[in-house]
């Protein structure tokens, strides 16, 4: 980095591609809020889940072993294979 310069941020890069009305008048924080509101706006017509089904009395709840967790954490492929 050159002394005295502020490193370029991802925010500036995103901002440069936004061709919206009066964009120059807004701070990066305003733009982040604007994007989040715009992304969430179409979802507001939907009713969120308000309650969960009753707690299930499963005889065998899912449990994972330390070796499975260790394999996942350390990046080794588990024998179960990947989900996606």
């Amino acid at each position, binding site marked *: 980095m050159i002394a005295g310069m502020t490193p370029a*941020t*991802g*925010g*500036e890069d*995103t*901002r440069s*591609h*936004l*061709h*919206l009305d009066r964009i120059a008048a807004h701070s*990066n*924080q305003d*733009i*982040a*809020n*604007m*994007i*989040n*509101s*715009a*992304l*969430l*706006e*179409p*979802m*507001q017509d*939907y*009713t*969120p*889940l308000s309650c*969960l*089904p009753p*707690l*299930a*009395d*499963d005889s*065998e*709840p*899912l*449990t*994972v*072993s*330390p070796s*499975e*967790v*260790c394999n*996942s*954490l*350390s*990046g*080794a*492929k*588990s024998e*179960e*294979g*990947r*989900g*996606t």
Partner: protein
Amino acid sequence: MELNPRKAGGPDGINNWLLRNYADFLTSPVCDILNASFAEQKLPRSWKDADVTPLMKVKPVTTIAKHIRPICLTPALSKLAEDFVVSKYIGPAVLESIDPNQFGAVPSSSTLHALISMMHTWAQATDGTSSAVRVVCLGYRKAFDLVDHGILAAKILGLRIPRGIARWVCDFLMDRRQRVKLSSDCFSEWGTVPSGVPQGTKLGPWAFHFNDQ
């Protein structure tokens, strides 16, 4: 599952490299946390928060909702838990009943297979028959974002999986929040997410599959 150590951490600030490099020390507490979550059939609150990286579909962006795809960065521990749930229960249950013409987001399959299948069908219809084929392509607007949670929960509860797992997946959908990450030090305020399956999670594509059935 493979944790990519170069990938940024989720909103909880726990990075993949930390989990990977200190796996020996963290295995036991992480194992306890995952098993507690499965036993309680719900996720810790912090696992439901997502940082959204705005991915531009076209440049320049003139309509945010249309031209930006929200990719969620969620906590690594949530992804670990989701991966176990998918590999042990959700994946097998969905693959048992999935339409054979579904190719995207299916293991060992890709959209290339969809193209080959279409070409095969068209060739069969036109080969030596002097027929022509008309193709109509349809796309869903905001297909991932506008999934109704009530309908999805009913389908999850109808899957052939233990009821406790179904409840865990329903809880995965509830009370989710997201904020936009514009840069490493610029975030929006949190907003609640009342619908959709989060893109970028392990469960997301699978939840989309069983909504599609």
